[in-house]
């Protein structure tokens, strides 16, 4: 029995399905549940902003997509393939497999390898055999996006400044052809000007058929530059997100 029978049929003009489809996701750590029954659909070519205060689950959402939370339930489909699972899993146990499905996570803070040089760092991002073979031109491409890194290639990342680290972190994520980029608070802890620069660079990235979600506390940095903005409040998405169905239905009756 179709529930949307009476309305106009869903307009699926896109050639492929959504890149990310989250249904009924709950996730948390131990006794604490951070994300409550969340739904989200991200389509190819979309640049999405998630805005919310500290501790409302933006990072946890990203970690849940990457399989890094303490436990999670519900369905996460990446490129139509189920990566979430409803098991209570140890954090990070399947992350590398999820990542290999086409996910690039640029985490909040300095989730980077202190001892490696910038160049090795970028290399480490090239985890598919193809990317590893083509790592030289890819590095060039990233250096074109972040020119300041060019003269730092041989410097251990531990010695870089916060902004440079963020650039390295984002550059590392760009080394493979990901279908979905998750950028967690690109401006956190950076001077406003540098933060803006990092944001510019993110906006400048050609998405093609992939998609990008940027989590940010500062709405001003996102407004007008992303395709849609969702608010995150105590573990649920408000705004457009909860009406994901609405984006499919038409109201011109």
């Amino acid at each position, binding site marked *: 029995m179709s529930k949307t029978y009476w309305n106009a049929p869903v307009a699926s003009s896109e050639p492929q399905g959504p890149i990310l489809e989250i249904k009924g996701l709950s996730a948390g750590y131990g006794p604490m549940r951070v994300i409550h029954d969340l739904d989200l659909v991200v389509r190819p070519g979309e640049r999405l902003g998630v805005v919310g205060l500290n501790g409302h689950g933006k990072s946890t959402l990203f970690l849940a997509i*990457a399989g*890094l939370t303490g436990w999670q339930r519900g369905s996460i489909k990446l490129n139509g393939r189920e990566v979430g699972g409803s098991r209570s899993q*140890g*954090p*990070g*146990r399947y*992350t*590398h*497999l999820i*990542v*290999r499905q086409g996910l690039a*996570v640029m*985490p909040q803070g300095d*989730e*980077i*390898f*202190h*001892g*490696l040089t910038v160049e*090795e760092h970028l*290399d*480490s*991002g090239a*985890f*598919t055999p193809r990317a*590893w073979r083509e790592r030289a031109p890819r590095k060039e491409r990233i250096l074109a996006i972040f020119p300041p890194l060019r003269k730092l290639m041989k410097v*251990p*990342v*531990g*010695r870089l400044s916060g902004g440079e680290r963020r650039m390295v972190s984002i550059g*590392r994520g760009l080394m*493979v052809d990901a279908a979905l980029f998750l950028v967690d608070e690109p401006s956190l802890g950076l001077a406003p000007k540098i933060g803006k620069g990092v944001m510019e660079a993110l906006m400048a990235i050609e998405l093609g058929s992939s998609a990008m979600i940027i989590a940010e506390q500062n709405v001003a940095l996102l407004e007008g530059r992303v395709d849609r903005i969702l608010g995150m409040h105590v573990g649920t998405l408000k705004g457009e997100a909860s009406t994901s169905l609405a984006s499919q239905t038409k109201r011109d009756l």
Partner: protein
Amino acid sequence: MDLGFVIVSAVTLACIYGTLAIGISITWSSLGLINMAYGLTFATAGYGAWLVGDQLQAIDAISDTTWIVGPIVILAGILTGAACGVVICAVTFIPIHDKPNFTVRGLIASLAVSLIGTQVLLQVFGPRAKSLPPLFGDWELPIGNVVITADKGGAMISSIVLLALALRWMKSSRRGLEIRAMMMNPHAASLVGIGVRRTGFYVMALTGALAGLASVLLSQTYYISPFSGLTPLIKGLSVALLGGLGSVNGAIVAAVILGTNEALTSALLGGQYALITQFLLIIIVLLFRPRGIAGILDKAREA
């Protein structure tokens, strides 16, 4: 004091120590595991090589041709070591690597494995030491008033080659990069597609193979017996510690320093002071450099 002699024995010892320490250092750096079962791997690999060697000795046609027996025995040692490493990984690393308190628990788990394994070896093979057939033929090379035997020379050359290869591999390959990345931040490593568990097996098989190789190469110094792994373990740990846990470069520098120290001590003070000077040296270096020699080499490491 005969300088030439001191240099030769320093090089010999440095080779032995470097070979012993590198496996421990890599294990610690990538898995965060102080592998107390390293000595067990060492002993088990020796027994594996011995079993194969014993079988080969029985075949008359090839029992005297070193160029056939040698490589097969070495290969047997390496394979047994790798298998042992995989087992240790499956028991001590896989079940608990993402659980709280992993470092201490991993240490104790590997200790327990070593305790059990040693007793099993003792019961299966008996307490008597075994030796391997000569692996590098039967030549001698006099340098000044020191004579380097085939076994020693072969072991030295192979360990230098081995260390060079290991260093090069760690520096230039994707696997090496993965191992180094995992050692710095396992969480972030999984974000760049590095499977922690798979890499764990990988690393342990590799270090097991290194231990196996070391065991075969040093079988003339540490004969194969159930407890023969203890000394290599302690030596390897102290070298790795002095080098700075997790730094392969540091371990090699430390091996050279400790080898020189031991050669000098033997020449100047007498062999019985070798252990004392060794530990004093380690303590002094650590008091000034709490992160070992790697703390000097690599300033970017976290304090």
